């Protein structure tokens, strides 16, 4: 009798381990992409604000732009990255599930 992928995973065979590690790598790459998107924007903020002192002279509703930039918009960015990531991660799991139990 041919062993299913689920058996191989449950018994930790080399073949099962290969599939498992492929899933882990895919999940990790997705997380790292999201991290780079987040880190690229938020990580650049302190340096950008330091290098662009002209922003201080711009006011939005009477508040200097640097304060406006760090006080509110990044939170919306976090939520957006988080929501997109959560959907993609679930989709990766879904395709792994299909691999182990092919849909009939």
């Amino acid at each position, binding site marked *: 009798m041919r062993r299913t992928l689920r058996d191989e995973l449950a018994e930790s065979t080399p073949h099962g381990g290969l599939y498992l590690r492929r899933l882990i790598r895919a999940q990790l790459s997705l997380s790292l992409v999201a991290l780079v998107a987040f880190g690229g924007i938020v990580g650049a903020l302190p340096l950008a604000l330091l290098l662009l002192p002209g922003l201080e002279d711009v006011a939005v509703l009477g508040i200097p732009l*640097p304060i406006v930039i760090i006080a509110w918009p990044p939170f919306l960015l976090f939520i957006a990255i988080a929501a997109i990531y959560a959907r993609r991660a679930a989709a990766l799991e879904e395709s*792994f599930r299909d691999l182990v139990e092919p849909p009939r």
Partner: protein
Amino acid sequence: MIALGAILAVTGATIGLGLYGVRLARTTSDLFVASRAITPWWNAAAISGEYLSAASFLGIAGLQMKLGSVALWLPLGFTAGYLALLLFVAAPLRRFGAYTISDFAEARLGSPRLRVLAAWVVLGIAGFYLVPQLKGAGLTLGEVTGAPYWVGVVAVGAVVALNVAAGGMRGITYVQAFQYWTKTFAIALPACLLLIHLGGLPERAAMFGRELPRAPASGLVVELAEPQRVTFPAATDYAVNGTPARASEGEERTLPSGEIALPGRAVVPVADGIDAQRGEDWARPVDDSGPTSLVFVYSLLLATFLGTMGLPHILVRFYTNPDGPAARRTTVRVLGLLAMFYAFPVVYGALGRVLVPELYLTGATDSVVLRLPEAAWPGLGGELLGALVAAGAFAAFMSTASGLMVSVAGTISFDLWRRGAAPVDVRRRRFRLSALAGMLAPVVLALVARGLDISVLVGWAFALAASTFCPLLLLGIWWERLTARGAAAGLMAGAVAATGAIFAGLAIDDTHPTIDALLTQPAVISVPLSFAVMVLVSLRTGVGRPAADAELLALHAPEGLGLDEPVAGQRAPA
């Protein structure tokens, strides 16, 4: 008196709901099975409720008033921490079935000794985090009733310890969710009303322009309880207990206790440890050097981004999610709820500069959130809003301190007390004794640490968590070659580097500004160090180890395949 009533009401509601909730859960069904039915929104509100502490409620605005807009990086980092948790930890850890880091350490790496080491680190982080909660309590009770500082510290310490020992606040989701909405309402309503009342931002010159903080046109009278060393940023007339005096620009003096009076529009002298800043300097979120330097900002962001996942009371809450994807959905909602709360502290920090400049003189900037409503509306309206804010602040200390105490008591009674099987009633007695004993050290430290800013104290807890548990979790989940020895070496290296820097920073004063910044916020060095030690020691000690397939499977295999039997999680959290 209204405020005291509001505080007592919130405290009573918390204790009552907690005890009632435990009884309800015991009589209906098992607490944790019952919790599984909770929707992601309830869970998210509960997580946010436990997370928003004195540092968020009082500390951000206080530090913002004192140091300037550099404090605005704090809420950003506090929230981003949940993004890191979402990307790397939430779903795998939920699947693994570990809900304390000690559980995770032992189950993933198979080392009971690592569990004990992790338990000590839990106590260190929880201690750093409990002290500012108690400081906030002492401050708030003092503001509201005029009681001495130690009264609030001891009272809240005792209430929380007894409550946890009695079995209340056992991770009851609905209580924590109630705390979240209390806090958000308490900080949002006065902030919105203030902006409407003032018709926008008053006196922009003092906030963002070339002005130093000044007394209002009608003059300023401040009661000093004890003598205060101050610097006069400008030549100023003033009076001490009715005796006129004059200080020249830049002069340092020790003001005696009693009534200090400043004439209208006088530049306010600043307490020792505060720099008088013009609005435009105060408004700048990052600077070339000094306490707002780039190094400090990045180190702070790193500590908060990576430290959140290592706070002892945070991961436990994720256990009430039914599975990995639900843990992710919950975390996305947490980000939304935190964003909603963190939109408001900035209003208090900025308006405080204009409306309660006397806090620069007394040095008590941490109480700006509590003071602002009554400063804006003398009379009943201000008193009512002040009571609301004080109640919100108490909700913040109670929820965070209780969550931490549950972790501390569980850690002492289960991980550090004599191991091995014990009857339920023995374990329960140990848990209670641990809760009472575990509160002693934080109370003593809080009495000593009165002069330190709440946000600075909390920053240390984050730095320690980021330098120890963050590498353990990230490498443990994503890198199969991590060994118990590597993890232990990394934990110790990170803990020693972070606490060593913090205590050195307390002992040493006025070295190079960059070194000062690193000693205050060491994460940018201690986190990479801990990662490096874990990886290098693991590579040296891990030769010839069998692969960790079973653990990887439990962490990463999707649900519903019959593969996701949890490895850890044999014990219910205390």
